[in-house]
């Protein structure tokens, strides 16, 4: 069976561009939440988010992430690779279109419509592919919200394992904008106190964050042949549905359990071999305990021995970028044998009673790590990485 390895990646978070700056904050246990500056949050219940110092467009962010990932993997352009991206498209562009219509300003309308294509997720992948010299026939875009980029990584894994591609650039990215903010505010999803408190009894919701990660997946033989630096192995993944509710997770975490079980089966490992879990854990009332229950379903009593952390407590919820960024965090954890903490936890919740690595990074020998993500509609992914020796 063909094996899939990671040979390069880029990382963008509220802390800026780069793997090092992210590691400094994530393993240092500091969060990126501050008052929103990109737009006026006054009309909304919440005014905080993990914004980065970035004023470019969403597509520009994607292009920067893609270039950096290829560079890190020592791949030059044109790249001989597929591209699979998780992206929602740029709602800002549609917003400005309607602003142009409202103003009935001909030159304004022209400016807004010229960039309308960027509202389409598929356009982002095509534009990035064009930049990389990759034909459109080797591209795919996922837009299933918070599992978009983990779905993208999983599909990239399938493409390589089935022999359809030897290399795939994959991942996702997202920026906080007013429209997204308004939607989450309408859904009363935001935390009430300016931070995220995953698994804490007094958790009150999520906060959004800027994020982006693209990574290069390669077939092992191909990577070895070109003497690429191998960072980790992606051993398997799973994708499932809760079939429970439009927006709430199954309370017993059935869908998460199914995705994790599939990932374990495809990785050909037992649950006991997982040494760290990066949880989806958004700090929402229902999701954190549902995920805890899902983990217990799979791991049984062993669940209490596995360190589990929610790095959203530091990065915020990155939406389409979440899966990819958190996979990259798992990769960094593997490389450093460091488990990032869950910060912001204040009070014990008896329904969330596992080891969430509270407040401080922990040193631990890691072998296999698991990244779990979930989205509305009960859609779940699980990705397993293995340390490369």
């Amino acid at each position: 069976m063909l094996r899939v390895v990671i040979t390069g990646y880029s990382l963008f978070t509220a802390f800026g561009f780069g793997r090092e700056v992210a590691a400094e904050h994530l393993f240092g246990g500091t969060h990126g939440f501050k008052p929103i500056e990109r737009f006026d949050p006054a009309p909304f219940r919440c005014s905080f988010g993990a914004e980065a110092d970035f004023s470019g467009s969403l597509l520009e962010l994607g292009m920067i992430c893609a270039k950096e990932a290829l560079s890190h993997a020592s791949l030059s352009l044109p790249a001989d690779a597929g591209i699979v991206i998780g992206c929602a498209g740029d709602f800002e562009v549609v917003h400005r279109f309607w602003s142009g219509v409202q103003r009935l300003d001909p030159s304004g309308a022209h400016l807004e419509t010229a960039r309308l294509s960027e509202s389409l997720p598929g356009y982002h992948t095509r534009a990035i592919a064009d930049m990389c010299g990759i034909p459109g026939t080797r591209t795919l875009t996922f837009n299933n919200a918070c599992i978009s980029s983990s779905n993208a990584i999983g599909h990239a894994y399938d493409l390589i394992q089935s022999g359809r591609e030897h290399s795939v650039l994959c991942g996702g990215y997202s920026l906080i904008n007013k429209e997204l903010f308004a939607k989450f505010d309408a859904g009363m999803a935001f935390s009430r106190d300016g931070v995220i408190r995953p698994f804490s009894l007094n958790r009150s919701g999520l906060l959004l964050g800027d994020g982006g990660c693209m990574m290069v997946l390669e077939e092992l033989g191909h990577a070895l042949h070109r003497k690429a630096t191998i960072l980790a192995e992606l051993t398997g993944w799973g994708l499932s549905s809760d079939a429970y509710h439009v927006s709430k997770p199954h309370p017993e975490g059935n869908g998460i359990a199914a995705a994790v079980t599939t990932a374990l089966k495809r990785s050909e490992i037992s649950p006991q071999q997982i040494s760290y879990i990066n949880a989806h854990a958004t700090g929402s009332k229902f999701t954190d305990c549902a995920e805890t229950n899902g983990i217990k379903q799979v791991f049984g009593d062993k669940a209490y021995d596995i360190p589990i952390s929610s790095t959203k407590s530091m990065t915020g919820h990155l939406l389409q970028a979440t899966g990819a960024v958190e996979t990259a965090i798992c990769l960094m954890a593997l490389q450093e044998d460091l488990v990032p903490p869950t910060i912001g936890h204040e009070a014990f919740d008896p329904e969330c009673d596992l080891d969430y690595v509270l407040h401080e990074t922990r040193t631990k020998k890691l072998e296999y790590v698991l990244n779990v993500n979930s989205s509305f509609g009960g859609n779940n992914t699980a990705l397993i990485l293995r340390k490369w020796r």
Partner: protein
Amino acid sequence: MMPMSLSVKAQSCINAYGISALELADKGTAGLSPKEIELPVVPGFIKSNFSPLIFESIARLNQSCRIRSGPRTAMIMGSVYGDTSTIDLTSRDLVEGRNKMNPLLFYQSVPNCIMGFICMEYEITGPVSCISGLDDLLVPLLDLAGTMLHGDRCDQVIVSGICLSQSPWSDEMNGRPIRDCVVSLLLEREHGTHNFHPMKSLEKTIVVNRNSQGWSIQSRNEGGEEACHHHFPEFPGLGRLLELSAQVHQIAKAT
């Protein structure tokens, strides 16, 4: 490119002209006027035809070939422009200063939500994905379905392609007005080894074959392709899906 074959077991097509995929393929849309599509109310989804279209399309699929519940059934939805009605409603709310939008618009703006609703309806717990494309959606939908089926991750995959009308920015990008349309297909592995007995079985089925050039449509026991002689620019991304849907409809009628 590893060759693979899929069997198309059922199809449904709902469009703004109220005619079947077969009629669309046969006559095109010249001279036809779009009309209001009668759709069921889907609880929790409002003001946009997107989610009701997908829901009804899959319901009609189920009438001709039973959708199995459980982890071995997958769903993939694809669109070029997405739920433009909901996108426009929320954008216009903000532009016009209505910052407190209807929370139902938040949930339905996420395509996974209607997929989750359908999963509840049919108790589907298998893989579910939503994809976006710029061109014809047939290839990415079938590629993804083929990956799932031939990777033995499921036994049935429902693929749906959808487009929505009445959004000026998507009409502008499309170059002409878009009309409501959804096409859904139920796919299985060709020469599957499972015991599956649909409510109605097709003695002849459409097989689609994948090679390095892409997907080609082949009717089993007949050979060759039956070309669709119309293009459907008002249904962006759905042209070849309509063609395939028409062929399945034709076979079903003859059976």
